[in-house]
């Protein structure tokens, strides 16, 4: 590895002569060793999925949820150091709560991503702290329905627009990925962790920017992509965890929830079949051709 710090990498917030903060780059290494996480933005919702590597047979199956909820309609999943991920979620929940106190409405996903990006970036400024060892994917649905304000009393005046701009489009899905440096972008499909290269390749094939993928189809795809990404850690067992947020008229009614177990099992079954199908193509497929 070229230029291993050499003195400029021992402390956070220190610039190297070529303008790099090595502690942040080392934090990214911690992320690259973590289980793969992906997020998919669909036409009518968001899906988050993660590959939970099983480190011990003694772990309780089905417990140890990695995908956390923030407020009611936003989910967060992270790859890297799990305790740092929990700290991140804790701050996200505080930000959401503080937004609600001020504006009496749930925080838009875009605003939350901005707040968290700033928070993570702040941990790269001082030598007395270290950067977060996680990359987090934040996804949610901002409601487009007419909702009441928090603690609403009464129904407002019968005439006029009630302070709202007529015809302004509001709400919709939001998917953001925040790195240890605090940098973040909005995504149609996001992937991080060990199998991110394979996952990204699969996500690009889905043509997500056209905004046509349906939520249920997205769930199947997400499971399949995690299985593909797991090839990079083939020697270890893993548990698939998936969650989704839909629009108000969708299956989750605007709330962030775990994908129901029946749908999850179906998605896993299809994903496993797709993986076997690929093996057949590369393996016995050649045998058939030779016979002909």
């Amino acid at each position, binding site marked *: 590895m070229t230029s291993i710090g050499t003195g400029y990498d021992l402390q956070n917030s220190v610039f190297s002569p070529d303008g790099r903060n090595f502690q942040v780059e080392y934090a990214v290494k911690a992320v690259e060793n973590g289980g793969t996480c992906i997020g998919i933005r669909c036409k009518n919702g968001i899906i988050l999925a993660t590959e939970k590597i099983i480190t011990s047979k003694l772990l309780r199956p089905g*417990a140890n*949820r990695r995908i956390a909820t923030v407020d009611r309609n936003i989910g967060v999943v992270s790859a890297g150091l799990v305790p740092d991920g929990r700290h991140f979620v804790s701050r996200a*929940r505080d930000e959401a709560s503080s937004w*609600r106190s001020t504006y*009496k409405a749930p925080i838009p996903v875009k605003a939350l991503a901005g707040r968290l990006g700033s928070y993570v970036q702040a941990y790269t400024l001082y030598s007395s702290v270290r950067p977060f060892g996680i990359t987090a994917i934040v996804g949610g649905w901002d409601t487009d329905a007419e909702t009441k304000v*928090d*603690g609403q009393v*009464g129904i407002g005046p019968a005439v006029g627009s009630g302070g709202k701009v007529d015809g302004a489009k509001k709400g919709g899905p939001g998917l953001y990925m925040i790195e240890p440096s605090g940098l973040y972008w909005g995504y149609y499909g996001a992937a991080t962790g060990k199998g991110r290269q394979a996952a990204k390749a699969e996500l690009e094939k889905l043509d997500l920017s056209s905004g046509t993928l349906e939520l249920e189809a997205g769930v199947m795809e997400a499971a399949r992509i995690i299985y593909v990404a797991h090839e990079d850690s083939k020697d270890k067992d893993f548990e698939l965890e998936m969650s989704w947020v839909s629009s108000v008229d969708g299956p989750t009614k605007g709330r962030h929830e775990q994908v129901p177990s029946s749908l999850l099992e179906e998605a896993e079954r299809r994903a496993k079949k797709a993986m076997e199908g690929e093996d057949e193509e590369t393996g016995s497929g050649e045998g058939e051709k030779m016979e002909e």
Partner: protein
Amino acid sequence: MNHLPQAWGRPRDDIYGHYDPSHLQTAGPNAHTQQPIVTGTSVLAVKFKDGIVIAADNLASYGSLARFTHVHRLRPFNDRALVGFGGDISDMQYLDRLLNSLDVNENYGSPGHVLNAQNLHTYLSKVMYKRRSDMNPLWNSMLVVGLDGDDKPFLSSVDLLGTTFSSPTLATGFGGHLAQPLLRKLADDESQVKDVTREKAVAAVQECMKVLFYRDARSLDSYSIAVITKEGGVELKEDEQLEGQSWAFADTIRGYGTQVN
């Protein structure tokens, strides 16, 4: 005469009264609730065999002015608890937002841990008592209804002093005087609750709402009613109307209109 430095240049106390130093406090305005401003009137509830019925009218009065007529004072918490608020409406808003954030936080853990009506009541009573001890009360009297930890019907009240009551029938405000006697005819103590059907309970509550509209001078004929059961969860109807109100008997009342006798 007071020749001490603190009295130099000051008008005389015996003519102008004692000097009020309260404006010197640098901590800023420190408001303590002295009186409720915009208020809701009674809330009534009764337990029946499988659950609870609760009702409150849709009026927020500004003193004697019937100011806001679409104020829903029954606020559901989750699918097994609901709080009915009487008293100051801004404090009701504060508590509603507080309970909303409590609900958001409770849902963060693994599924299966649900705050039932009893937990909610305990929590609210701690909040109310704390505020009373700060001499800054939330000026409300509330009924907390729903299902307790064993899925049995739960009904309790808590008020601005942090006092709690539990009974098969409860009512706040004027309801305590006008409605409670009628509700108690239905179920006087806990052992009689199992004989009360849902229909009887709803009918009794609606009858009491009519009585209150006739006799409580700060009430309205539009009301909200909710029924909470294990099977049905919280069934809330927010814009019910009292039917068949007739003031035809009014001219028989002594002192009506321009009558002297």
